[in-house]
């Protein structure tokens, strides 16, 4: 783990020191001859993170490391790996960090469960709220603080302005 991290830091330092100018995301010379395999490579690339970039997939990134990963993905596909094997290969080499959609495990359980949990909790709260409603409504009315004289005067004024047209008939 430590070695992987220092390697990673080294790659960043290298990229920065070379002052990598924007090249291009997928380059013409990377494209595979078989369109079906190329399409698979593109789909896989969108799921993989360019590890020296800020939130870019290797498909979008211009960094040299992303190009290396793209070539690696295509190499594995050419060697006959299926999608899962390619992903497994990359995770084994670079860790879970390379996946833009993390796998479900003990570290990501909460991440994956939080949307359904929030929805469930919200629904439950609404259901309870709906059942308690008649009781809550009993307390209505008496609790509002009385209007101040200013507000009463303003209210009268607004109401008078509102009702003026009706009074005509």
């Amino acid at each position: 783990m430590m070695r992987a991290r220092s390697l990673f830091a080294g790659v960043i330092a290298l990229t920065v020191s070379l002052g990598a100018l924007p090249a291009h995301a997928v380059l013409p010379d990377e494209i595979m001859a078989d369109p079906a395999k190329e399409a698979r490579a593109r789909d896989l690339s969108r799921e993989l993170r360019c590890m020296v970039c800020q939130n870019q997939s290797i498909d979008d990134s211009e960094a040299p490391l992303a190009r290396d990963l793209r070539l690696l993905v295509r190499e594995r596909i050419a060697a006959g790996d299926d999608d899962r094997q390619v992903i497994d290969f990359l995770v084994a080499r670079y860790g879970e960090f390379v996946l833009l959609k993390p796998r479900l495990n003990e570290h990501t359980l909460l991440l994956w469960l939080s949307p359904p949990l929030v929805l469930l909790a919200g629904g439950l709260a609404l259901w309870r709220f709906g059942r308690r409603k008649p009781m809550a409504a009993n307390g209505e009315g008496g609790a509002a603080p009385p209007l101040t004289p200013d507000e009463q005067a303003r209210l009268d004024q607004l109401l008078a302005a509102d009702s003026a047209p009706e009074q005509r008939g």
Partner: protein
Amino acid sequence: MIAESGHYALVLALGLALIQSVVPLLGARWRDAALMNVARSTALAQLLFVAASFAALVTLHVTSDFSVLNVYENSHSLKPLLYKITGVWGNHEGSMLLWVSILALFGGLVAAFGSNLPLSLRAHVLAVQAWVASAFYLFILITSNPFLRIANPPIEGRDLNPVLQDIGLAVHPPMLYLGYVGFSISFSFAVAALLEGRIDAAWARWVRPWTLVAWIFLTLGIAMGSYWAYYELGWGGWWFWDPVENASLMPWLAGTALLHSALVMEKRNALKVWTVLLAILTFSLSLLGTFLVRSGVLTSVHAFATDPTRGVFILLILCVFIGGSLSLYAWRASALKQGGLFAPISREGALVLNNLLLTTACATVFVGTLYPLALEVLTGEKISVGAPFFNFTFAPLFVPLLIAVPFGPLLAWKRGDLVGAAQRLLAAGIAALLAIALVLAWTYGGATLAPLAIGLAVFVVAGALCDLAERIALFRVPLPISLRRARGLPRATWGTVFAHAGLGVALIGIVCETTWNSEYIGAMKPDDVAKVARYELRLDGLTQRQGPNFRELLAQFNVSRDGDKVSVMTPSKRNFTTRGAATTEAALLTRGASQLYISLGDASADGAIAVRIYHKPLVLLIWWGPVLMAFGGVLSLSDRRLRVGAPKPAKAAAARALQAAE
């Protein structure tokens, strides 16, 4: 001299904000109108001083005064005037100054147009507004002073990041901030209501226009930012689920929920406690967004501030305001009484469902954005949460929401008739099925989910039109009467129609762009021809050109379709000498709502150049949708029923005159 005046004006604004934080509250406590009215004068004076400070920084940038550090680091004497001005907020210090300027602007607007508010509510609102302002003035003055001088002024500046030298910078940040900061008003109203222990339908009516203004700007700001990224970053993406984008999406989702729940509160006096919480959460998320972007805690494309002292300061502000307001809420919310009963199937019920789904979506973005950070801090484990995660989790939340959207306006308040609403949506359902069948037939053997998504989008658009047709009794009464009814409809109703239809329009664009996008990637030499989606693009040649502060390589493409010449496109690559950075300027050709998109890569030694060409069908709908939504917001805002105590139209005055004459 100008820099010092600007600095001094900011200090004065801080002083005024501190007075405004305390005096009106004392006035409210002692029921002293004079003290409460202090808030009004200080808010207006604050606006004046902050505006002066901002004007000072703009002047320094325009005159290229490189003795000021901020100007030296972000400007260049040869930079075009527009970018000298927009460069003011293209950096950390300047953008924070823009932030407080907009905060002061909103405070000033409440002071100027809030004369119909009860005096004590206005005093409370402006005081809370001043707390926020004081915190951010202090932040700027202590950690991010834009007026610092350099002892030995250099001759030339270091230029602005080339990616930011674009018209997008002129529009996107100010709009986004008008949205972000605009929600501070809803927040101040919510905290004021909690402090006063009093909240009613009138409160909702006062809050709604302010929320609507903020929401309109945030909608446009996000859409604008997305279009900017689309054409500037050069790979044709328009939404990256980048943490910084998420930071603006979260307040938008919460703000959209707030708009809808405030509606329930205004009309039916229900959901009070929830609406107050949403108002607090929406601005808290805006603050969180500011923190995420400004502290550089997330390393992402937008983050250009990396000084940790600033991060800690904003984190402190964040904790005080979010923690403080939520504690206040926990303490006082029970004092707010619920009212207004409604059945689950009713307009209120539909709006509650909207709120449930929008807040869940917001929570999903929140967790997805912050989870990797939290996990790394707690366990040292590094994971990535990117676009595939968000796309995967968002769809199940937005599909039911979109299905429910057309039903909402067709249900009655208190108790609605679902079957009746479904019958009235029959036409929309048929339109959706037709659309699905058509798209399936057109793209036979292609994607299967995309036609269904198109059907859903058509259902949303047609549903909005059904609602309109229902209200004007189209085809049931003679057409002239329908037209007269359409004119007589409240503007807010028209607003709903436009906003909901805009949602569907955007979805059509999103589905078309992601599913039927075609691309060509290749190395081209002059006279090579690339074929993309029935278009032929011939590379005529490459030329070099000198711009004001860059050199660029231009490629000229001749575009034809089925042998007929269509247009010429000239994408380019720019090299900015001062920063040694390069940008790709994509060329866009709009045909209806679809676009051709060319961006250039590197030239190779043999005279070829790497080229990416995309055809993006109906891509512009992605941004027309939000524009429609914002237009709906503007219509709704112009509805005079939204303005409490607005002068009655002439008819009422005439009636009163008549009455007097009798």
